C-alpha cells in the first residue's frame, strides 16, 4: 500500500548513548509490561463496528487526531505535571479522573495505572500509590530521575502501538501495514511530546470528540473483543 515513508535517518553513525534509565523506561512501556493494555481499544472497536474506521488509512488518521488533539496530548501533559517533584499528586489524579470522557475510558486509565503502580513500586522500590496511568508514570519517572519529555514521547509511541495492535485484531490489517502506520506516527509522537513542555492544567483540552463518542458507544457494543 502507499504510505508516507518514515524518515530514514542519514545519521546512522551519530553517537546514540544509551542511558540505563532509557532501558527501564522501555521496559515500562513495552507491550509485555503487565498492564493488560491489550484488553483496551480506547473506543476503536466501536468506531470499527460503526464503519468509521475500515482500513489502515482510516486508522492512521484517527490515531493522528487522538495523539495531536485528544488523549495523547493530554496524557503527555499529565505525565509532565506528575513528574514535577512539587506536584500535589492526589489533586492531580482527581483532576485527571474528572477529565475522562466516559466510564470505559476512566476504567482503562484507572486499571492500567493501578497495575503499573503495583508492579513498578515493587520492582524498583518506589513510593507509588494507585493513580491514573499517565499520573502514575509521571510520578515513577520523577523518582527515577527520568526526562519527562522522553517519557512522554515513548509513552505516546506505546499508546499508539497498542491501538495499532488493536486495529490489527479488528481490521484485516497485515503486520507490515500495521508497523508502517506506527512508524509514520513516530514524528507526531515526538512533536506532541515536545510541544507539551511547560504546559499547565489550563492547557489540557480535547477535540477528539468522535473518539469520546465511540468510547461511549462501546459500552453497549456486542460482540466485543475489548474492554473499551
Amino acid at each position, binding site marked *: 500500500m502507499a504510505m508516507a515513508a518514515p524518515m530514514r535517518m542519514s545519521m546512522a553513525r551519530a553517537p546514540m548513548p544509551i542511558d540505563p534509565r532509557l532501558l527501564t523506561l522501555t521496559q515500562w512501556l513495552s507491550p509485555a509490561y503487565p498492564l493488560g493494555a491489550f484488553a483496551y481499544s480506547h473506543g476503536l472497536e466501536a468506531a470499527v463496528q460503526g464503519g468509521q474506521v475500515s482500513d489502515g488509512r482510516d486508522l492512521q488518521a484517527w490515531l493522528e487526531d487522538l495523539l495531536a488533539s485528544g488523549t495523547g496530548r493530554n496524557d503527555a501533559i499529565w505525565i509532565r505535571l506528575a513528574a514535577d517533584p512539587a506536584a500535589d499528586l492526589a489533586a492531580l489524579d482527581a483532576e485527571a479522573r474528572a477529565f475522562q470522557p466516559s466510564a470505559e475510558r476512566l476504567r482503562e486509565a484507572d486499571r492500567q495505572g493501578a497495575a503499573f503502580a503495583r508492579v513498578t513500586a515493587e520492582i524498583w522500590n518506589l513510593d507509588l500509590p494507585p493513580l491514573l496511568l499517565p499520573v502514575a508514570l509521571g510520578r515513577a519517572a520523577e523518582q527515577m530521575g527520568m526526562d519527562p519529555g522522553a517519557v512522554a514521547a515513548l509513552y505516546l509511541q506505546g499508546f499508539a502501538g497498542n491501538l495499532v495492535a488493536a486495529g490489527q485484531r479488528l481490521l484485516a490489517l497485515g503486520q507490515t501495514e500495521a508497523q508502517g502506520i506506527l512508524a509514520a506516527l513516530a514524528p507526531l509522537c515526538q512533536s506532541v511530546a515536545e510541544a507539551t513542555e511547560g504546559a499547565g492544567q489550563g492547557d489540557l483540552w480535547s477535540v477528539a470528540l468522535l473518539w469520546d*463518542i465511540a468510547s*461511549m458507544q462501546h459500552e453497549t457494543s456486542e460482540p466485543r473483543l475489548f474492554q473499551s
Partner: protein
Amino acid sequence: MLNETAKLGTGTEVTRHLRTDDLTRDAAVPRAEGALTLRAKARDGQSALAAYRGAGCLKALFPRGRESVEAIVINSSGGLTGGDRLDLDLAVGAGAALTVTTQAAERAYRAAAGEARVTSTAQVAAGGMLSWLPQELILYDGAALQRRLQVALEPGARLLLVEPVLFGRRAMGEQVRQLAFRDRIEITRAGRPLYTDALRLDGDAVAQLARPGVAGGMGAMAALVYVAADAEAQLPRLRAMLPASGGASLIGADLLVLRLLAQDGFALRQALLPILDRLSRETLPASWRL
C-alpha cells in the same frame, strides 16, 4: 459592510453592527460589559428569587407560573465580539430549583481585536437543582471567545447542564475558517473535581472539524451533564434516543454525560429537544420552542 447590513434582519443584529463600527475606532476599550447575579432559594416548598442584579448589557426576564425560578438571560449588546466581558454568578439554595436559559442563540461575531470572555460560576446547595440550559452558541468566522463555566455542587445537589455550539450557520453557507475558541466546563462536588470538559479550536475550524476523529465534518455539537440520583435509570432511554453521532455514559453512580454531534443546528435541536424534555421532566423553557 453594506452587504452585511442588508442581510441583517433583526434589531439585535443591527445594534451589534453599529458596535462593530465603534470597535474600529478604539479597539482597546472593552466593547460590552455585563454582570448578572441570580440567587434562588426555597420558600414555603417553592423556589423563589432571592436576589437579582443585572448590570451593563446583561439582564434577565422571569416568566411566571413555574415551580422553579426560570431566568431568561438577555445580552442586550446583541452578540459577543473582541473585548467583551460577561460574568454570570448563580447560586441555588438548599431545596431550591433554578433554570437558566437564554432568549435566543448567542452569537460570537468576528473579533477585530482581543477576545470575548464569558465567565459563569454557579453554586448549588444540597437538595438544590440547577438547570443550565442556554440556547446555542453560534460561532461566526473570525470569532475569538473564551468561555468558562464553573459549577460547585454540594453533596446531594442536582445538575442538568447543556452547551450546544454551532460552527457558523450552515444553512446560510457560512464557513468558519478562522476561529479562536476555548470552552471549559468544570464541575466540582464538595470541592473535588467531578467532571471537566475543555475544548479548544484555533485557526481553520472547518479543516479541524473535518478530521475523522474530531467531528467528521459535522458543524454542530452539544455536551450534556446530568447529576442526579436517577442518572443510571435514565441511561438506557437516553442511549435509545441518540443518533449514531452521539453517545452517553454513566461515569459515576449519579453522573451521566452525553455528547452529540450533528450536521447543523437544526439536526442538533431535533436530537437534543426530546432528551432535554426528558431530563427536565417536560419543563424545558418555552424560549427553546420558538
